[in-house]
């Protein structure tokens, strides 16, 4: 038995390392993460309404059923995107995620302070390539820098009470996500 003590001890130490590495690697290895689930709605660089969750089917687990939502799965390698979201009567938010689900930016109707949230999504390199004068003249232009080339824009609109769902959905249908050029 004693001859197994050393390999077991070594195994435990190595196990700690395996744990750290596998935790770090999990976001990249997960086959069924939010991005993969939302990719089933199709379309890259376009907006898709996310089906309302039911007990039998939901795009993702633990979705908030009090919201209507839409997603734009993006790839900025061909250029920047323009995202337009008309705000609804109650609460509308736009959140940005990297390809592996890191929430890097979010804003809501109140922080945007207008009836139409309009922004441009680009990589830091694309922003640096903007003509300088253009950057100055459009002072109120909202530019969001994506740390990764691929990711998700997720739009949530609150349905305050059930009767309002149709109206909120129709409003969300007017949102868009398309190449800026």
């Amino acid at each position, binding site marked *: 038995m004693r*001859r*197994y003590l*050393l*390999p*077991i001890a*070594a*195994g*435990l*130490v*190595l*196990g*700690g*390392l*395996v*744990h750290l590495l*596998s*935790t*770090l690697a*999990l*976001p990249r290895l*997960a086959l*069924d*993460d*939010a991005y993969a*689930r939302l990719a089933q709605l199709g379309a890259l660089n376009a907006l898709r309404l996310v089906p309302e969750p*039911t*007990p*039998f089917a*939901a795009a*993702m*687990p*633990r979705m*908030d*059923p*009090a*919201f209507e939502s839409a997603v734009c799965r993006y790839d900025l390698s061909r250029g920047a995107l323009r995202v337009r979201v008309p705000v609804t009567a*109650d*609460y509308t*938010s736009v*959140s*940005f995620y990297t390809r*592996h*689900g*890191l*929430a*890097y*930016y*979010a*804003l*809501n109707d*109140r*922080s945007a302070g207008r009836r139409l949230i309009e922004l441009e999504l680009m990589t830091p390199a694309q922003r640096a390539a903007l003509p300088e004068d253009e950057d100055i003249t459009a002072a109120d232009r909202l530019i969001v820098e994506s740390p990764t080339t691929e990711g*998700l824009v*997720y739009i*949530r609109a*609150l*349905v*305050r*009470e*059930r009767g309002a769902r149709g109206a909120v959905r129709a409003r969300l249908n007017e949102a868009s996500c398309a190449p800026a050029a």
Partner: protein
Amino acid sequence: MALRALILLVAFVVAAATGLGLTWLASATGNGFGAVRVGAWSAWPKSGTPDADPYARAAFARSGELPLGLADGLAFYAVNDDGGNRLDGRCDIRIAGRLSPARFWTITVYDARGRLIDNAAGRYGFTSSELVWASDGRVEITLAPRARSGNWLPTGGREDIVVILRLYDTPVGVGSRSSDAGEMPAVSQEHCS
């Protein structure tokens, strides 16, 4: 020679089992470090920011959930009642008290796997404007298998349930101190059938 190979094999098997076992456990329980706990409720404000730690990122990648961006809102999870007992949908679960300030909030009931619970009323949760409030600003919600008067949410008699209370457009969690978390309602269970 064969013995040496066996010893090496033992080391690798132990390494793989402990390492992957720990990762499996860690990604299945909680969303990383920096939890804010108020009574039965836990939230992970950092998980909705670019500073999310590797455990939070692994947990969300595995579950397939998108975390709420912190500028959007904060989700408080309740798995147990105030006494530390697992929430059981066969009991009457009472959620009562005051809430931290938020422009809107929602409360939703899920089964252990994060699915909504089927019921004839098609009712899975409440928004803050759907609820009947007490005059002193307190809320009282009952989760039970059968219909109740007042703010009732059906649990379908499921054994293990999870309640998520989401605060939208809230200052809670933006500060790093736990004392900023403010008030959350008490969670108790009775009349387990």
